[in-house]
């Protein structure tokens, strides 16, 4: 419980001022899910910082689950969202179902990664936006540092949605960047329903790296119509039968 102890929290704040992670003055955006917020350094996703999200497995190429995760975060921010892409395959009705209606998103279609990063930086420096999202494959230390500083100046959340053309390129995700947190979201089979059909989508949300925090992974239910994640009932309550049953089938 990082934020629980007052002395520790104070120390963390002082370190934060020194190393310039700068989340203190802009506050955080909580997920509204105690199981998740409790494990994050300040009890939420720091505003005025850059965060990285990628999909796991096939998601490294199609980035669908990561897109929904990011759309849920953006939906809970106040104000307009700038979404910069280099390949135009976002489907606005799908985003609207994650709580991000079309009138809140300004799309930018830039030709390549360099233009996407430049457009993101421009958006982060503006300050009037709620969140800035960019689909990028390569994110160097320099580029991420620029984005992080731009975000820090205005308090806008910057999210780099890492998405690669080929599965093999996804090893790039191991390279260090200046991002505050680094998430990986992979699809899991949905909860079985008593009738034929697909239940609410489930994800394995992994926090791979967090500055001043610890990494963890958590099985969560996908965003609802307002962008809020859910905790699966069997994880929340852990009835012995459900847990045992899953093991037996696995």
């Amino acid at each position, binding site marked *: 419980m990082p934020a629980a102890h007052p002395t520790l929290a104070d120390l963390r704040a002082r370190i934060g001022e020194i190393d310039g992670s700068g989340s203190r003055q802009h506050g955080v955006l909580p997920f509204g899910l105690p199981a998740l917020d409790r494990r994050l350094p300040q009890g939420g996703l720091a505003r005025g910082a850059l965060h990285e999200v990628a999909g796991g497995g096939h998601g490294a190429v199609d980035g669908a689950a990561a897109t929904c995760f990011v759309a849920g975060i953006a939906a809970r921010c106040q104000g307009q969202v700038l979404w910069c892409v280099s390949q135009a395959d976002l489907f606005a009705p799908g985003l*609207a179902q994650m709580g991000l209606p*079309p009138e809140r*998103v300004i*799309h930018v279609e830039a030709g390549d990664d360099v233009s996407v990063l430049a457009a993101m930086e421009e958006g982060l420096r503006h300050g009037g936006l709620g969140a800035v999202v960019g689909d990028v494959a390569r994110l160097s230390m320099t580029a991420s540092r620029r984005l992080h500083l731009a975000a820090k100046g205005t308090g806008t959340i910057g999210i780099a949605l890492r998405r690669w053309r080929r599965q093999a390129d996804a090893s790039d995700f191991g390279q260090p960047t200046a991002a505050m947190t680094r998430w990986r979201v992979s*699809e899991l089979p949905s909860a079985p329903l008593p009738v*034929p059909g697909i239940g609410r989508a489930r994800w394995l949300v992994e926090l791979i790296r967090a500055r001043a925090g610890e990494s963890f992974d958590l099985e969560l239910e996908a965003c609802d119509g307002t962008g809020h994640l859910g905790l699966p009932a069997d994880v929340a309550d852990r009835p012995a039968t459900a847990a045992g049953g899953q093991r037996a089938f696995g």
Partner: protein
Amino acid sequence: MWPIDRRQRQAGSAPSAERPLIIAGRAGSRRVVTAACPAAQGFGLRPGMAVARAQALVPDLRIEPDDGPADARALERLALWLLQRVAPIVAVDPPDGIVIDSTGADHLHGGEAAMLEALAGKLALSGITARLAIADSWGAAHALARWGAGTVTIVPPGGADAALAPLPLEALRLPAAMAAGLRVLGFASIGDLMDQPRAPLTRRFGAELCRRLDQARGLASEPIAPLRPEGLIEIRRAFAEPIAAPETIARTIGKLVVGLCEALAAKGLGARRLDLLCSRIDNRTETLRVGLAVPQRDPARLTRLLCDRIVTLDPGLGIEIMTLTATIAEPLSPRQASTLLDEGAPDLSGLIDTLSNRLGPRAVFRFAPVASEVPERATIRIPPLAEPAPVAPDLGAWPDHWPRPARLLPRPEPIETMALLPDHPPRWILWRGIRRHVQCADGPERIFGEWWKREAEAQAVRDYFRIEDETGARYWIFRQGDGEDSATGSHRWFLHGIFG
């Protein structure tokens, strides 16, 4: 066709087959047909024919007197409309043409072919019959637009000679007597003239012939004097010494913008489009066009937008005149900066201007719903600050009782499947070489073709399924057809989107 189009636009009537329209002018003492509408041409009426003969051929003929000055004025208005939309340098090419210098402007419209297509569409919608051509020189474009094979011609750079060779001599903008004289000598096409020794030609016909030939082939320069309408807000600076350094250009832009903003403020206007014209000492004009999402007259912002693009200017040996014009200006009333009430939505126009001038105006957009069940038609791109068009509330938003994927493939990709017909989801799918076993599925969601849009869709049906494979990946697939009747589709399967 311009006089005919103008009259029909004025009257607001479509050309009618019952009452063909001709324009009658005077040639000496005779009344002759100067233009005829397509219906009249179908009856065999041609420009140059005597009016009396035309009346004898077609009894119920509508005859309008020739009005050259009015045609010219209307043509100038059309040129002005093009100036505001297409490129900074536009001029009238009387009696029936408009010449546009599209250098550096085509990429804003998505390339030359896309630009011409969009332009032809817009003109056709306004009821103007237009023939368009792009070539290296004014002369070549003029000739190909009037005498080329198709209604839209694009000549690749350096291809002007080959394109011009088969055209008749009249395409060179020569006086009629000179063309007739050349014909007597046995010259039929421009190609015949190109290889001739020039001295005898010049001696016989004067310098005009070789000048026109060189202009068409791009060997002689022919500057276009841009159209400057009355009341256009324009600031001009001429330099004692030509300038070329980017810093100097930036400083000059700053001074020009301040002057322009003062002129705009005096009229209560804000600029929506700025054109910077730089006349180089070798008599070429470099242009720079900047668009704005909302009317603006803030010098710092306009200067920044213009200075961002200095790299695209080629100063050559030096620039001697710089002109800044507000090509489109709209009323801009002062606004109260702050109130005691809540702050409104933050002003994003500056950000949008910066991005759209850097990446092109089509690159920054917002999606708006369209009342269509077909997924790829369910969205339309609108300008980022535009209000979405009001639609009926029950049709406006997308349906939310069926899940929609976050990523939609640009076009559906064919997959191989094994499925029970007619309404079962597949047992497995093979997509991009990987076989995925379907664990659970939802569907079908049946989407019917929009018969009111295309005849071919009258019977078409798509059955959409949402499937989940053993790793948890969720896809949106559909079958073309209802699974029973082959008239509704080919019964092939496609993958269309990916759920999170």
